[in-house]
Structure formats: structure tokens, C-alpha cells
């Protein structure tokens, strides 16, 4: 029975999704090279990203092979791991750029990235277990109760943007999980009422970022990054200045160009054509993921894939939106493209899960 079944499964593996994933990772590695070629202190980054990609792709393959349904029994365990991991950051975490986000295990890792994936799984488990009760207020609150602790822990690091991303992902999952519109409205109103409280609990630099977004002329020094990103993108024109020839990125006017602003490097060196191509790749990826969600055999799988799709979607929009000055400057990387091991490996693990869902969407097994 074994080989037939395995080969049937692989027939359902989403190769389009794989190819798109590989393209995005390749673009990332190449653009990180471009972004760091003139900065000797960042020389290592390209090689490191390549290693993360190889490790991540290996893990993705492994996850795809394993049946995602095995995870459904580990819900509580995974949730404890999530909270434990985020808690550890406060004790042994490294303070980098004013926030405790990293744990040093030989190489610095960012637990909040993995926590997003684990929270997706835990929430998917809860929502699929109670799919018939989710119409009831109590269960909605329970779902929120699962979501809120990791969000708060990430917010306290402080990592505002990641907390927002996770909130958005959780909200979409609860929405797709079947919440009633009435409850959506009520939560929305409650959120609006709580907004002023949230605003005043924001750290000074976070408030400043939002204010600069609203009025970039307010603080010339702080709006420098936005200004330079816009100049990089805008000066790219139709076809861009050519690989390794972006003056803004190569001469260092564009800051954090290997991570948060890598989209600007792409737009500068490859122009509108290049940046639209990148958008197209992300779009295809999301389309394929939502297709998997629709054909998933159970709610658990569907919600995992919806969570992953939302994660990739929200992060892409926030990152690109920031680059093109539609959204405030935040520290959200561009999925698969920005430099960063934790993010890349987590996303690939998530895609592995999605592939696992895809491979097992047929109910009848021969």
C-alpha cells in the first residue's frame, strides 16, 4: 500500500506554490547580496540567508511529509511552549535596538516569529474543536483568551508591529472559523473604545513613528528613512537602474536596506516591472494558499492554512505599504525576501504545514 499512497500524496503537493516560494527566496538572497555588497560589515548576510533558506526548505519538506493532524493532539503542549518561549525572552533575551526580542543560542533567534506559527496552530485547534459553538459569545471570548497572552507578551518586548500582525492573523482565523457578524461588530466597537488607552500605552518611539507617518515633515531626522525609501523607489522608473546599480542603495542613502527596506532596493534596481513581478509572486502564493484552504479536508487544516496565508499577506502589505509610504514605518520584514533566519524558517515551516494539508485533502485513501 505504502508507495502508491505516498506517490498519490506527492501528486497533490502544490508545486506551483513551491516554485513561487523558491523564486521569492532566490530574489531575497540576490537582493540581500546587492544591498550588502558595498557594506563590508554586512558581507556575511547573503551566505547566512542562503543557509537559513536551505535549512528552512529541508524543514518544509519534512513538515510536508508528516501528517499535520498529528499536531492536533499537541495543542496544549504547543501553547505552553509558545508562552514559555516568549517568557524566556524577558529573562535571558538580548536587548537589541531597545527591545528584548532575541534569544542567543549560538545564533540569535527571534522567538516571536516561531510564536506566530505556534499560535496559529493552537488557535486552529481550538476553533476546529469548537466549530459549532463559535457562534456563541462565550467561545469567541475563549478564542480571544487564547490569542491575547502571546500578543501581550510580544507587545511587551516591545514589538508593536509583530503584536499587530498576530492580532490580525488571529482575528482573520476567528472570522473564517465562523464568528457571527454581530460579534465582529461588537469587538470592533470595543476596540475603537479602547484605542485611546492603547495610544497612551505606546512607547514614545512608537507614537513618534505613527506621527511621522501622518506628517513626515514633523521630524526631518526621523523621516529620513521614509524619504530615502521613496526616493529609491521613485527613481527606479520603469525598468530600474540595474542590478547593483541603484545609487540610493549602493551609496548607503537607503538604510536597513537588507531587511525592512529591501523592497525599495528591488524597486530601485528593477523598476516598476521588477516590483510588480514581486507583487505578482506574492499574489500567486496567497492565491495558492487560499486554494489549499478551500480544499482542505477539515477545519483544522483549513484554519492553519488561512492563518499562514494571513500572516504572509499582512506582513507583505505592512512591509510594502511602509516602503511606498502608505503605512507607518515598522519593523516587519518582507516575507521570504528580507534578511532574517527566524522569519524565513518559520514561514517555510508554515508552508510545509500548508503542503501537508494539500497532500492530504482527499478523504478517500486507497
Amino acid at each position: 500500500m505504502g508507495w502508491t499512497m505516498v506517490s498519490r500524496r506527492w501528486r497533490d503537493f502544490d508545486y506551483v506554490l513551491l516554485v513561487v516560494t523558491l523564486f521569492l527566496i532566490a530574489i531575497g538572497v540576490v537582493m540581500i547580496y546587492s544591498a550588502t555588497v558595498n557594506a563590508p560589515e554586512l558581507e556575511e548576510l547573503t551566505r547566512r540567508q542562503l543557509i537559513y533558506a536551505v535549512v528552512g526548505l529541508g524543514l518544509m519538506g519534512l513538515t510536508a511529509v508528516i501528517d499535520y493532524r498529528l499536531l492536533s493532539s499537541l495543542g496544549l503542549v504547543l501553547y505552553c511552549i509558545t508562552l514559555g518561549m516568549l517568557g524566556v525572552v524577558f529573562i535571558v533575551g538580548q536587548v537589541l535596538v531597545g527591545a528584548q526580542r532575541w534569544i542567543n543560542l549560538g545564533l540569535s533567534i527571534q522567538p516571536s516569529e516561531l510564536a506566530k506559527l505556534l499560535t496559529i496552530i493552537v488557535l486552529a485547534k481550538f476553533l476546529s474543536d469548537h466549530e459549532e459553538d463559535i457562534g456563541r459569545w462565550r467561545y469567541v471570548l475563549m478564542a480571544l483568551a487564547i490569542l491575547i497572552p502571546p500578543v501581550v507578551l510580544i507587545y511587551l518586548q516591545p514589538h508593536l508591529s509583530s503584536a499587530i500582525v498576530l492580532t490580525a492573523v488571529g482575528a482573520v482565523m476567528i472570522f473564517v472559523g465562523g464568528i457571527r457578524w454581530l460579534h465582529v461588530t461588537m469587538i470592533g466597537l470595543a476596540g475603537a473604545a479602547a484605542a485611546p488607552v492603547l495610544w497612551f500605552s505606546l512607547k514614545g518611539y512608537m507614537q513618534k513613528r505613527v506621527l511621522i507617518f501622518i506628517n513626515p515633515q514633523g521630524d526631518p531626522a526621523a523621516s529620513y528613512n521614509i524619504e530615502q525609501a521613496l526616493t529609491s523607489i521613485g527613481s527606479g522608473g520603469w525598468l530600474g537602474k540595474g542590478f547593483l546599480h541603484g545609487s540610493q542603495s549602493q551609496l548607503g542613502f537607503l538604510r536597513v536596506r537588507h531587511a525592512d527596506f529591501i523592497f525599495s532596493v528591488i524597486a530601485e534596481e528593477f523598476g516598476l516591472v521588477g516590483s510588480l513581478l514581486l507583487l505578482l509572486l506574492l499574489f500567486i502564493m496567497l492565491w495558492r494558499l487560499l486554494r489549499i484552504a478551500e480544499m482542505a479536508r477539515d477545519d483544522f487544516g483549513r484554519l492553519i492554512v488561512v492563518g499562514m496565508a494571513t500572516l504572509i499577506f499582512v506582513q507583505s502589505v505592512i512591509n510594502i505599504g511602509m516602503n511606498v509610504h502608505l503605512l507607518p514605518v515598522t519593523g516587519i520584514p518582507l516575507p521570504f525576501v528580507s534578511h532574517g533566519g527566524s522569519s524565513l524558517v518559520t514561514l517555510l515551516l508554515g508552508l510545509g504545514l500548508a503542503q501537508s494539508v494539500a497532500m492530504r485533502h482527499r478523504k478517500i485513501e486507497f
Partner: protein
Amino acid sequence: MVSSQRPRRSMSRVLLLRIAVVLAFVTLAGQLWRLQIVQGDTFRWRANNNRFRVLPEPAARGVIYDRQGSILARNLPRYQVVIVPEDLPEEEVEQARVLRRLIRLLETPSPTSAGANGHSPVPATGRSPSLEETLPVTETTAASPAPSGASIAPAFPSLEELQAQISEAARESVFRPLLVSDNIPRDAALLIQEESGNLPGIQVQVQPRREYPSGALTAAIVGYTGPIPRESVDVYVEQGYAQTDEIGLVGLEATFEDVLRGEAGYRAIVVDVYGREVRGIGSPQSPVPGHNLVLTIDLELQRAVEEALRNGLQAAYRRAGVAIAMDPRNGAVLALVTLPSYDNNLFAQGISAKAYAELTEDLDYPLVNHAISGIYPPGSVFKIIPAAAALEEEVITPRTLLGDSERLDGANDGVIWLPNKYFPWDRRQDQPFYCWVHKLGYGHGRINVVTALAVSCDVFFYQLSGGHVRFEGLGLETLDQYAQLFGLGQLTGIDLPAENPGLVPDAKWKRQVYGQSWVTGDTYNIAIGQGFVLVTPLQMLNATVAVANGGYLYRPRLVYRTTDANGEVLQNFAPELIRELPIAREHLEVVRQGMYEAVNWEHGTAANAALPNVTVAGKTGTAEFFIDRNQDGWPDRDAEGNLPTHAWFTAFAPYEDPEIALVILIEGGGEGSKAALPVAVEILQAYFAPEEPLEFTETAGQPIEPTEPMDGVDDGQ
């Protein structure tokens, strides 16, 4: 088990998610279109603005030489200390050590930086420095020049100030050099360079600065350069200057700015975010050095003239005076000295506030070129003009006798009586007009014009100009007309800024200023260079030159020619005639004879100017002036009730074929024959005895084409 309703609801909600994805991506794509296509040009311009820099390469300013090739103005390295924050030690204690060491090196007083040209700010005569100029006839009416661009050198900052400056600059860019001290002494620069291994982050930069080897000796001619005055930065930037450029502010440095300046080159480069040069673009435009000026001034003669004037001032216990030497064949100024002077090097280096205050508060106005900006009553040196005018207008002939006599008013005592305008019959209301000789107890008697010039007879010129009894004089209008022909009351057009036109008064002027009508007495006063007429020493010299050379009024010249950086002649400045005087040569010859007799006749007022080896002609002048230094509301007078006088002397030599003409003025110096004349004698002795070397002269650091001495052969006339 699984209800069919649930998945359907999820499905529809996944569809909503798809719609959200499409909308979001369309929005992003739209924004990309807007930025990259619609506003692409704006951002491309911004990106280019980020990376391209045009670096100006300053041109070497032209050198100024005297006619023999001695350097009067040149460029020297100017040492600046800059700090590159990036290269400073990171450790705070170590960084403070480096900065403290730097401050110590800069504070060590250097022997060369002390005031080289120390003339005392205390007036040598010891008179009280009260304010003056309450009356219109004054020594010097030119205001002291505004402190335009006189850069005041700041004291070196303390450690704390320095650290503040550095952290301020580091916020901008840690790679950009921060200028912390400008114009440091060469010794200090060398010390810092020697210790550079021990002073990481400290660098010495070299910029050009102006140096004037002859300093105060030629400051009034050469002037100085300095930063562009703040109020006119825009105007200069429009003309292609950089904001930090230095320009000529005073003297020839200012007048010939366009010639001396040269053309700055530039280099286009690509810079990175820290302002570091990444690479050059295109071919750089190298700077074109400015042109050199070769002056008509002879530094050796200038030195001799200055020394002679200094001696003359010392003998008269005065500090202020002027001496100018000119070639009467072409108007070339050979020497121009105005005292007190100032060291123009102080300005080129950035003068200290204290030194600047000393210069501006000095009542003898060292910063003013008295030769062209100071206006004075000319006294008797003016008499050459009424003499020439009367001959040309046929008011007199060379044989006409005028003057005091017993037959005229009962006594040849040097006094004539001018009837009162309204009571001409009443002898008791007659106004006396004195000849200078009256105080010796006699008059000059009836004499001709040559003798009148020789003895400087005032009565003769009163009558000649204003008329007396039945003798019809020149009259004010004709006198004015000739004064103007001789160049008075107008600019001579010398190549120096801030020239004063002086004043040739007429009846209308008096009515406007004083509300009184012109009377014959005013004409009498003008006839002897008193009253309302005011001249600059240079104007008086120019008028004298026109007599000496037979009627040619030249524009005084300071620049002989311009050369390029290789010494090739670019432009020779030909003598420029203002006008040929409409006066017959034989008439001017009579005036020349008068000046000859003044020197060469034993009774002449300038008999002491006679020299054994050359025939000198000259004219003395002693001009009363009004000044109220004690501020009692009345003009100051000496113990005998006399007004103070400026001592004048004009001269030319050789009489037969003049090659040098002089004007000497000792402000408040007393009698021309006593105070001014010896100065001229000393100068003429030096000029006509060139076989004895005058003094050690500085030789040009850079050889230029040997200049053949300028003489009258090359002039256009």
C-alpha cells in the same frame, strides 16, 4: 457529523479574504505606479541630488608686484586644524587626552604671531583725543571704512566647547572634517603634524591665504582680502563665488578683483551617504589662476618716501601726512604713502577685535587713505591755478604788476583793504586781507606773476582773482572753471576705491549750504587756497603735474600691466589722458617759471629745496584749517591766536624735463616750507641719487620678466 453549513460559511469567508488580497495588491501596485512613473522625475532628481557633488577647486589669486618685480601681495599656505570624529579614539579618557594635547599645542604662543607692525595706538603728539569736525573745513571728512568683512579671529575653544562641537558635528557625519581652528601659526601646524601619530583624528589642512610682504608700507595701495561681507553674499554667489571665498575688500585687491581672482575649477564626484568620495565623474575642470598685477609703484622709492615722510612728521610732532610721487610724463604713481598706516596682513589673517578697535578708534584714521579720501584746504599750492587762468584769460600778462604799495593804501605792509559791499564809501568798514608776509612787518610790493608765485604773495592773488579797485580780477566763475579744468572738484579716477571728489565751491553752493550770497572776500580766500575749496592731495599733485608737463592732465595710474601665471604680459596699461588743458604752453611756462623761482631764487619760499645735481621747481603751501578738538565751540587757535595749518609742498624735477612730481602734506604740520619741504628734499635726494643703494630691498621670490623702466617714450602723447 460535520454540518454542511459551517464549511460553506468558511468558504465564503475565504472568498472575502481573496477579495481583500486583490484590493490590497491593487492599491500597492497603484501606489508604485504613482511613485515610479508619475513622480519618477522628481525622485530621480532627488536621488541625483543625493549622490552628485560639485567640488570647487579655488584658483590661485594673482600676485601683485611693484615695477621692479618685488612682491607686494602673494599667496601663502594657511593652516587649518580639522577633526575627523570617526578617527578620534573611542575611549573617552583617551579622546580627552588627544583634545587637551591639541589645545596645548595651539595655545603655545608663537613668536611670529605677535603684532609685527607695532605703531603705538597712543597719538604721538599727546593731544587729547576728543571729537572733532564741528566745522565744515576739516582734516579728513572721509568716514572710516565699515568693518565689512574684517573677519575677527575667535579665541580657541576650551575642551568642553570642543567636545560639544564634535558631538554636534558627529551627528551630521562622523567622516566630515570639522574645522576647529583656522590660520594657526606655521610652527603650531608643523608641531601638530609631527605629533600626528599621537593625535588620531586631528588633521592639518592647507588653504591659500594672502600675504603682504611689504605690509603697512603699501597697505593703502594694495588693500587686503577677506571673507565676503554677509550682506552681499547673494550678489557674489550669483557671480560664481563660493560662500566661503575671500574677495578683495580694499585697495587694488578690491578694484582689480576680477583680474586677480582667476577662475575656479571644479570636479564632479559621486559621494556616499557619509559624504565620502566614491568616484569622479567626467573630466575635471582645472582652475585658471588669476592674473598678476605689475604696479607703477617702485617699492624702493616707496620706502624712501615713507621714511622721508616719517622723518617729516616726527620733526613736526605730527602723525598724519601724505606723500605721493608721480611720473609727470604719463601719470604713473611711483609712490603713494599715507600715514599712519596699518598692517594689511592682520586683515588677511583675520584681525583680532582688539586690534581692529585700535585701528578704528584712532583719530588719525589709519584705515583711511588720506591721499585720495582725505580733503583739505590746499593753501598756496593752489595758486598755480589762478596764475595759469589769469594768463590764459588775459587778465594779466607776465609783465603785469600787482600787489600792495604805498600808493595803493598808504603802506606796503602786506595788507589790502576790501571795501564793504554795502558801505563802499566808508573806509572804516573796509575789510583787511593779509598777506602771510604781513607778520614779518612788510609787504611784497608790486610784483609780476612769476615773483608772486616765488614769494607766494597772497595780496597779488587776492587782486588777481577777486579784483581790486580799478583792476578787474578773474572772477569766481572763471576761477572755478579753471579749478575744474585742473581736475579739482572731481574724481581723478585712480584705481582705488573710496576716492573723494573734494569741493570747488560756487555762489549757488554757498547759498544752499550757508544761505548767504557770495562776496568778493570769498573769492579772495579761494585765490590762496583757503575758504571753501577742498582738495585731496592726489588732486593737487595731478594739477601740479599738468603744469609741469605743459598741460596734460592724466588719470593717475597704479597698474602698469597685467601678466599671466607664466609672467607673459597680457595687457599694458597705456597712459590715460583726462584732458589736454586749453591753456597756451607759454602761459603754463610762466607758471613753471614761478615754481622754478620759488626754489631757485634766494628769496623764494622754497629756496631750501634747491639741490646741487638737479633743478627743482616747487610751490609751498600753508593752509589754515578749522578744528575744534577741545570742543569749546570755537576753532582751536595757538597761543598767538593763529589757526592751525596744514603744511603743503608740491614739486617737480628736473625743471627742464620733469620725470618726477611730488605732493607732500603734513596734517597740522605748520608752515609748508618748514614742515613739508624737507620731506620732498629727502625724497628727491633719494630719487636722483640712485647709484647709492637706498636700503636692502626684498627680491622677488619668483622671477618675472625684467621690466624696462617706464619712461615718457612709450606714452601715447
